[in-house]
């Protein structure tokens, strides 16, 4: 894995990093790439409150904030920025405000790679709105200053529209970090059920979680 000058991750919800790119980030971090994770909301409208429920609507944002911090520690991310936008509202937010905040991060960090959701193919409106704001903010930079964008997508039938993922990362060596990231989000996932009695070397676990996929976003 090549070392990146700086990687900027922009996602809307605590736990968006866990299944889709935590292994990739751990792999980049091991290769010496600095990572900044901008998480736009606290996922405070989530419906999962733990089983049995230990969170409520009032306590959920603080609980998810602590889970996000634990997930970042598990992955090795030391620069976590939480923006405090309200969950589910990003598509209705002042789009210039959103784009401006991401633009300020791009100016500060000058990342060589940005990881986010693929706008239009990421299912949840907050995912799409985040990817769209990132792409607009980067699109405003001169062409030779734009970082590469690797985007996550999982809409049905997406391959007809945007083809197959062109960045496929083998993270079998980083399952420990990935599962610790998933496990950190205790209110959202039942990590123990995923693992069962399996070890990290279990072929089924490696097959299911060992690869992370991205699409390079192409600016026209």
């Amino acid at each position, binding site marked *: 894995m090549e070392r990146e000058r700086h990687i900027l991750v922009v996602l809307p919800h605590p736990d968006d990093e866990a299944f889709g790119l935590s292994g990739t980030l751990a792999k980049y971090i091991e290769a010496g790439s600095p990572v900044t994770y901008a998480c736009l909301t606290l996922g405070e409208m989530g419906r999962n409150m733990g089983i049995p429920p230990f969170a409520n609507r009032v306590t959920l944002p603080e609980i998810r904030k602590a889970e996000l911090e634990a997930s970042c520690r598990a992955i090795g991310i030391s620069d976590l920025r939480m923006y405090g936008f*309200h969950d*589910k*509202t990003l*598509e*209705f*937010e*002042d789009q210039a405000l959103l784009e401006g905040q991401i633009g300020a991060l791009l100016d500060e960090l000058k990342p060589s790679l940005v990881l986010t959701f693929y706008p239009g193919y990421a299912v949840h*409106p907050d995912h799409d709105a985040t990817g769209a704001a990132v792409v607009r903010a980067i699109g405003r930079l001169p062409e030779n200053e734009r970082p590469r964008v690797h985007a996550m997508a999982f809409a049905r039938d997406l391959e007809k529209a945007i083809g197959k993922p062109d960045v496929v990362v083998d993270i079998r060596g980083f399952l420990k970090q990935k599962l610790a990231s998933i496990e950190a989000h205790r209110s959202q996932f039942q990590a123990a059920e995923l693992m069962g009695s399996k070890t990290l070397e279990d072929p089924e676990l490696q097959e299911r979680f060992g690869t992370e996929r991205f699409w390079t976003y192409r600016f026209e």
Partner: protein
Amino acid sequence: MQLIERTAIQERIDRFKDQDLYLHLEMTTGAYASHLDASKHPAATFVTNAVVHYSLGSISGNGPYRVGLKMAHGWIYSEGLTHYEETDTERLILAGHDGQGKLVVALQLSREPF
């Protein structure tokens, strides 16, 4: 009621911003949800004639639609909207109806109480 036309709704949302309004916001699974299907959890909630004031609002999606209204200290959000009352130009009457035509969600704004 007729199927939502996004531009007509956006125009009304813009017309109603920056003023005190009466809000009716409702969601219901129907009182018989668990009687008809034991796996369903019956739930309903509404607020009627709460006074609200928003500075920014929009409709999104390709149907069913979503609406978000930004207030000084919070948000009004509604998902699953399908229909609006086209003859009522002084109020914004939005609803989401399921496959049987039953109301599931409603978002209504008016300058006078409902």
